[in-house]
């Protein structure tokens, strides 16, 4: 089934993981505001199921895109189709084991990777295979790589680095010093997010270029300068997570300085805004383009928030509050998911024999607006809840219970908007998923 459609198989599985992640996320949100809901699958199992499935969505769809684009659009047949298929099967097998470990309450890892550490080994091996296959494939292409090939290569390389780093806690030197362990854990997590951002943003540039039919976009000087700025932030811009940890002051200052370089990206977005807006009207009928436009707006919103919470004086009040969640979820849903959905729509339209029926297209377009509107409500609720919590704890010196009682009404609205968003995403995802599966069956 996947022999000729490796990329399509990855993204179909990715879309299923996205729906699974949203389902568990919705249940977890319900349990957050109404404790005791669905006791047979408690919150401490639901949350890792939600997080791991959403992380799986990000990797499956970005990796699937690379497997699809390389032979089909870049003219670089995979160095080893077989290695690609083995990668797919290892992913499925490990994914099933991870899900079972959560269901049976077998944990042992750290944030993002809560499963027993032994399961990190197949993930590591499969990624090495993917990296080997990718570099062997792209080294056969012209040396003047477009920026997305650099970004994909960087994302693959740094995932290996940060994934390894996130397991340094198994060594007593790190494990037996809580401050050092948390510092290194968040250094790894920060760069890990940077590494998947490289895969995703590379995909965004690729899809945009193909929609526009302009191959020069990915070879401009500004594209490479933006990539190098992103790379610098991937490596050094993570410490806003640990400002209040008793580490050395230079770690905070250095990261603060690096984070502020992202102001250049913000300025670039504002500078390009007018032309982006007029162009977006022209191509808005193209489904994948529609998601890229939404991602552009969410990048602006989330980058502004990221810059603000990287200022230590603001971070003091936002750290450990729902504003951090707004930053994480806003980026994961508003930016990453929008871009990856654009890529999925692009691939499925290319691979499938038939267009969407008018009914399907109407459902997708309605789902798109429901998805984006509810995400805005979801995001604003988290900002309000976070601000209330930050002020409540740092300024008013309220207890945790008092703060939670105060923000519970806004969290109920947040939960409701989450459910509406789930419905919107279902409307967006089901038609292309059906198309992809029927294509895989042929």
């Amino acid at each position, binding site marked *: 089934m996947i022999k000729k459609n490796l990329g399509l198989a990855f993204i179909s599985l990715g879309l299923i993981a996205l729906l699974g992640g949203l389902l568990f996320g919705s249940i977890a949100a319900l349990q957050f505001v109404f404790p005791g809901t669905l006791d047979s699958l408690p*919150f401490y199992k639901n949350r890792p199921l939600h997080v791991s499935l959403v992380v799986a969505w990000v990797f499956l769809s970005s990796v699937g895109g690379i497997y699809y684009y390389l032979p089909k659009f870049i003219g670089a047949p995979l160095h080893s189709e077989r290695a690609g298929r083995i990668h797919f099967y290892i992913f499925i097998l490990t994914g099933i084991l991870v899900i079972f470990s959560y269901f049976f309450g077998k*944990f042992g890892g750290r944030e993002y990777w809560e499963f027993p550490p032994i399961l990190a080994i197949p993930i590591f091996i499969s990624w090495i295979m993917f990296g080997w296959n990718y570099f062997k494939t792209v080294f056969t292409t012209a*040396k003047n790589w477009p920026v997305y090939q650099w970004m994909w290569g960087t994302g693959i390389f740094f995932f290996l680095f940060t994934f390894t780093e996130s397991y340094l806690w198994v060594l007593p030197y790190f494990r037996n*010093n809580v401050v*050092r362990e948390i*510092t290194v854990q968040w250094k790894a997590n920060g760069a890990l997010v940077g590494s998947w951002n490289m895969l995703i943003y590379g995909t965004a540039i690729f899809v945009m270029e193909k929609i526009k039919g302009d191959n020069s976009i990915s070879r401009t000087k500004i594209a490479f300068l933006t990539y190098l700025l992103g790379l610098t932030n991937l490596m050094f811009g993570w410490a806003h997570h640990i*400002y209040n940890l008793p580490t050395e002051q230079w770690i905070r200052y250095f990261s*603060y300085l690096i984070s502020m370089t992202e102001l250049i990206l913000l300025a670039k977005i504002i500078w390009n805004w007018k032309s982006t807006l007029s162009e977006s009207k022209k191509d808005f009928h193209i489904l994948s383009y529609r998601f890229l436009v939404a991602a552009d707006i969410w990048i602006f919103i989330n980058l502004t928030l990221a810059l603000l919470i990287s200022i230590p004086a603001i971070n003091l009040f936002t750290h*450990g509050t729902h504003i951090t969640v707004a930053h994480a979820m806003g980026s994961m849903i508003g930016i990453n998911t929008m871009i990856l959905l654009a890529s999925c729509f692009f691939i499925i339209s290319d691979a499938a024999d038939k267009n969407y029926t008018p009914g399907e297209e109407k459902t997708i377009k309605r789902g798109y607006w429901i998805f984006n509107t509810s995400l805005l409500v979801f995001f604003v609720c988290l900002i309000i809840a976070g601000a209330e919590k930050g002020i409540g704890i740092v300024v008013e010196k309220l207890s*945790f219970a008092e703060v939670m009682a105060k923000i519970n009404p806004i969290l109920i609205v947040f939960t409701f908007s989450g459910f509406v968003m789930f419905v919107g995403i279902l409307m967006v995802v089901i038609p292309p998923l059906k198309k992809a599966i029927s294509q895989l069956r042929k």
Partner: protein
Amino acid sequence: MPLIAKQIYFGFLFLTFCIYSFFVYTSDTPSDAKELMTTDAQAGKLLFQQNNCFTCHQFYGLGGYMGPDLTNVISSPGKGEIYARALIMSGTQKMPNYHLKEQEVNSIIAYLKYVDKTGVSPTMKYTINSDGSVNYNE
């Protein structure tokens, strides 16, 4: 941008990153954190991970949001060891009773005592500087 310029910049950045990572790994932590955890606290740390306590609780504001930050649960006024022990053993409306053995509860308490000595969270005493930086818990 010529290929060689990209390669040099990438190489320079990666080398800087490796040196930087080395300094982060070996940087000083507060004197209390330098003390190695007791064997009991080490067992408590593993139990913390095996029961996925981080999914609800935080240390230094990092972790889940369902439950409170536990960095200073042992030394906070109105809380302390007895309070923590009682909650672990009975559970609450939001936290299940994990039915831990007495020795396991002791280990988790030992771990919480160790973490408590390493610093203060959330930040209660601070000075905000004109450049936007902060002096924490002075």
